[in-house]
């Protein structure tokens, strides 16, 4: 082999991996990179006389003066209360199922079922349940608890907590399955040894179950935070439309309305960039957590 041929061979070997990667990189570029760059560009522009003009931070300043946007952010933050509730409920139910209470297999399927249902179906069903003249209030009337009849979705005070209840009801199933799967992979000897040492039920949970579930709890917490920040559009759109009086407005719905109903794509882009950044932080945390969990498993 001549020197030139050897050089050419080395060059091809160096380029080869990139050629294999190229199709995937092009697809990723088109699907992710281009829209993100376009989104960021749009967020710094505004239309004027048929042209897009660079306006610096004007769109960002406008949204931070917009009461509806600030309300949406406050509502998203309020909805974050549901995260510890989801974690706690999922944890308790997973522990009971792991203890193989009577009928645990039936309960496991039943508790996971809501997670499998489409959000639109869940939203519609709960809309009928929580209307003032809906199933829940009819039931309360039948059992003589009229004083608890409330306008669950029509009251500015109750609409957001009602929405939160539905989100917890649907999303908790994912946590249960995650926790249960992790618990089933814990070596039984750990529990047996603790029992021989005289540990009661509480001590078993405190000293074995919780430490073993720690990384799974962290993972579920971060995934739930991401869900609440950027994945609740379906619930809100179907159940309340953001009302009454913006009481359940969230950033995703705000983006949709601003972009597609008010035709203000640039302001919608600015809000999307903010949402992307905030969600990105949590996605980064989740990835770091996954790395740590893999390292821990390798060490153990």
């Amino acid at each position: 082999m001549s020197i030139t041929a050897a050089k050419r061979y080395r060059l091809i070997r160096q380029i080869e991996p990139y050629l294999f990667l190229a199709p995937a990189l092009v697809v990723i570029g088109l699907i992710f990179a281009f829209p993100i760059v376009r989104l960021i560009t749009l967020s710094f522009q505004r239309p004027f006389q048929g042209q897009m003009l660079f306006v610096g931070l004007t769109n960002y300043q406008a949204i931070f003066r917009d009461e509806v946007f600030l309300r949406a952010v406050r509502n998203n933050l309020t909805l974050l209360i549901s995260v510890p509730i989801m974690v706690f409920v999922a944890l308790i139910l997973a522990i009971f199922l792991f203890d193989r209470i009577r009928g645990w297999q039936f309960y496991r399927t039943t508790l996971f079922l809501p997670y499998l249902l489409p959000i639109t179906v869940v939203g519609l069903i709960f809309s009928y349940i929580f209307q003032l003249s809906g199933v829940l209030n009819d039931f309360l009337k039948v059992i003589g608890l009229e004083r608890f009849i409330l306008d669950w979705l029509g009251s500015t005070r109750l609409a957001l907590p009602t929405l939160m209840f539905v989100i917890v009801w649907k999303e908790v199933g994912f946590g249960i399955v995650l926790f249960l799967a992790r618990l089933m992979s814990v070596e039984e000897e750990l529990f047996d040894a603790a029992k021989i040492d005289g540990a009661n039920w509480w001590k078993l949970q405190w000293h074995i179950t919780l430490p073993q579930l720690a990384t799974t709890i962290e993972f579920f917490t971060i995934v739930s935070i991401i869900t609440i920040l950027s994945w609740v559009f379906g619930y809100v759109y179907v159940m309340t439309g953001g009302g009454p009086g913006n009481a359940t407005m969230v950033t995703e719905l705000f983006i949709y309305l601003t972009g597609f109903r008010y035709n203000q794509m640039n302001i919608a882009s600015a809000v999307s960039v903010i949402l992307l950044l905030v969600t990105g932080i949590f996605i980064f945390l989740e990835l770091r957590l996954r790395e740590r969990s893999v390292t821990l498993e390798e060490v153990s």
Partner: protein
Amino acid sequence: MVYNPTLFEKAGIDLNDLPDTWDELIAACDKLNAIGVTPISGGLKDGWFGGWLFSILGRQNLDSEKDFMKASIGEAKFTDPAYAEWWERLHQLKEAKCWNADINSVDYQQGQDQFVQGKSAMIFGNDTFLKGWAEIIGWDNMGVMRVPKYGSGKLADTYVVTAQGLGITSWSQHKQEAADFLMFMHTPDRLNAWFKYTGVLPADDRFDTAQIDQPILKQIFEWVVQSAGPNLENFIPSMLDEQANFTGTQLLFAGEKTPAELAQLTEDVIQKWREQNPDQLQNFVNWYSK
């Protein structure tokens, strides 16, 4: 407005002397409430009905759709009494218990369904729905009346036409063909076929009324021909409709805001729209000036 004649008679409302002032409407609400019937039903959860209420009630003190464009571009204020009064009038209806209690928790369609189910005596409907309702409850169980008046603007006497308009863009390469197609859709044959297959009155005053056999539809067509007026939602920015009319009516029925606060909310929203949309504002100014 569409009403249920059986429920009206039961409540002692004279079918030959239907309410045509605001006070008479409130008196009719009292009579219907007395027999345990919801006077008017609607649904605000999905917002749209709030826009309708604005278009139907908000017009009564003003003379033209241009008045609303004028306030949108900042040459008048939505807090001016002529623009703001409809909030007070809607509030009066709420206080008089004219509406279904669950108005905020049901959507537009469910509100309308309460009328069809015989649970309410009146609705702010439109003629496009009449045939569908008649198929369920029969034409005899429906009557139509003009919206009772509180204002004295020229628009107070107009009948809101909800027809959707088709336009030809200035950049179209086939303007003539598009115009020819629209003309074709308005030939007598097409108008008759439209009515035959949909049961909905065509938006064309040349339509042959001999095709209409229902007195209710004949009456409505007469109103359309004599006093057609614009749907005001088409003459305001959609942000104003959503953030002031949709949101405001929900807040009013939730008891969260007074009529004066809602008028101020409307003005705040339109100021925000002007600030955020110089381009759209310029379009509105050009449109208003024409």
